């Protein structure tokens, strides 16, 4: 497996300059986002939890996470089922775990935090796969638990939702549950 130590080291160093200030900013901003009502936006049509900004973010992120498992032609159709699956999983979380997850999304969506904390300075919909991989690396190798936690949470959320669906099973050779009757 390639071990991209150099590029990781690079992004880590440039990130560290920001991150001390950023960790404090993150909690302040998610707090102020809550207070000013930015994060109280209603769930998008047809969803119980996910808001339109969350869907834009996930629509950029998920194809990168699923590349290799879902081919490019099927990616759009895949999102049509995966996004509702993620929504359903989130809706069953305890209120406090849901709140933490929504704060994570707020941080990713708010232009004031997104740039400095993720390295994605434009809109998520404009980010390239390489940009998103850089963002994931940056969080995975952060000095701060909050970002490592966020990195793992995004991956788990995505993988749980995708592989829970029959459409994903052919790729992993799972014939599905046995028929009982």
């Amino acid at each position: 497996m390639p071990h991209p130590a150099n590029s990781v080291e690079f992004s880590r160093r440039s990130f560290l300059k920001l991150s001390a200030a950023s960790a404090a900013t993150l909690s302040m901003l998610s707090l102020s986002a809550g207070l000013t009502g930015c994060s109280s936006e209603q769930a998008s049509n047809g969803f119980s939890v996910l808001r339109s900004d969350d869907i834009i973010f996930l629509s950029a992120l998920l194809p990168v996470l699923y590349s290799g498992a879902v081919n490019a032609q099927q990616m759009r159709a895949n999102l049509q089922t995966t996004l509702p699956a993620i929504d359903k999983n989130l809706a069953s979380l305890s209120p406090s775990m849901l709140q933490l997850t929504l704060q994570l999304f707020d941080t990713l969506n708010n232009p004031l935090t997104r740039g400095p904390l993720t390295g994605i300075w434009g809109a998520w919909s404009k980010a390239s796969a390489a940009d998103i991989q850089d963002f994931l690396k940056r969080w995975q190798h952060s000095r701060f638990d909050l970002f490592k936690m966020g990195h793992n949470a995004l991956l788990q959320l995505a993988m749980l939702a995708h592989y829970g669906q029959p459409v994903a099973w052919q790729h992993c050779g799972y014939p599905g549950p046995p028929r009982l009757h």
Partner: protein
Amino acid sequence: MPTPDLFLQGIDNGWQVHNASLLENDLQLDVDIVIVGSGAGGATSAERLSAAGLRVLIVEEGPLRTSSDFKMQEPAAYTELYQEGMGRMSKDGAITIMQGRAVGGTTLINWTSSFRTPPATLKHWASEHAVSGLDEDTLQPWFLRMEQRLGVTPWQIPANANNEVIKRGCEALNLDWAVIPRNVRGCMNLGYCGMGCPINAKQSMLVTCIPASLDHGGSLLYLARAERLIIDKDRVQQLECHALDTWGVKRTGRKIMVRAKHYILSGGGINTPAVLLRSKAADPYQRCGKRTFLHTVNFSAAQFAEPVNPFYGAPQSIYSDHFQWRDGVSGPIGYKLEVPPLHPAFAATIFGGYGEVSAQRMAQLPNTHMMIALMRDGFHPDSASGNVELRSDGSPVLDYKMTPYTWDGIRRAYHSMAQIQFAAGAQEVLPLHDDAHYVNNLNSARAMIDSLDLSTYRTRLGSAHVMGGCAMSEDAKLGVTNSLGIHHQLENLSIHDGSLFPTSIGANPQLSIYALCALLTEKLLQRLVG
């Protein structure tokens, strides 16, 4: 022929089973005994107390799901049957904690492994934690009784290929291994114990002790969360419960007040101490929620030439205790080796990674074997341990801190697992860690394992066994209850669940909970009715 849904039939025949989410008004109930939680501890206690003629109410915060609901699908199981919708984790987010939350508690979704409490653990409790009257001989008839009650016998059918790896590897290396006793009757070897047994073969509380309690006039109120005990001086006066919505997530606003002669908390580790913390129960030595243990687990994957199909067959049937006790009870940390079942969504999350790396690992799923090592935490002063805290909304979270002592066990366990996997014929082995990759020989695996940065987040960790947090001890400075499970400061409050354990068990804990709680209930009955 479809499996008859015994629970729904019981309700049709007049069982007192009520759904709190449907309540339109607040409720006041009067019973002899109220039990918070319907898992291993609560249901075992309820059966005996109901049979003795006491009016028993079980309060359960999770939903009621019965055999006809169990479709062997991961998403429905995880969202409906697990604590916090499978979102429960240590406070730092580094350890996923799989704990049941439905009528039947964790017994509904566990993998059926049923071990007696190891004698070394009981001796350690007596000598180090001032636990009295719970030696091997005293507990023996209670193990026997619960084993008979729940059909516990060593698994007779050949192990599936995933479990077989432990046996083959251990035999090649001359290490100890054995067959796991399971609590099943008429098991079809499906492999979906973790999603609710669709054929009622698993002898969970849903099909055994809860029905027995209901048959004897007991009652069950589900989707009701025990919020707090109302305490006056040294007695509990009432239990305040809040009704939850259909999904068990939000409160509906309806309250249920329960007045009882005696109160039993059986919410398990994390939830039982949380009720006490919310109640501001007297805790002069600050023991409540402290010393909570997880049997923290690390993972090692292996590729085999032949299909393993780790998603089918009894999930756990072979184990090895070779590394569990050999350095003494409180030497370097011991660990038990077992396997988890691997269904796609669970597998993809524990493998970690994304894109091509994840896709490649998942494409190999049918030929993948997975082994786990369960750290025997809590026996050594330097062991990792957790404290239960309340979040601002009153919900509990476990602040569990890994320590160098426990990390040392994680590293040794990676070595043991790789060694056994290669000895069993694995072509490639992968310790589940962000910096690890598949390697095709033991020397490479050893070098890689020695170089891994064992830290939280980079190391994949999990837990399915929450123990401790309301330890029993004759010394009030060491425990929340005495050795009878009775609260040191509150005379009409008992704790009957795994939170009583002063350390982890060193084996999957369900049978320890059953036997201990059966014994404690008998002693409680003697006290209540003479």
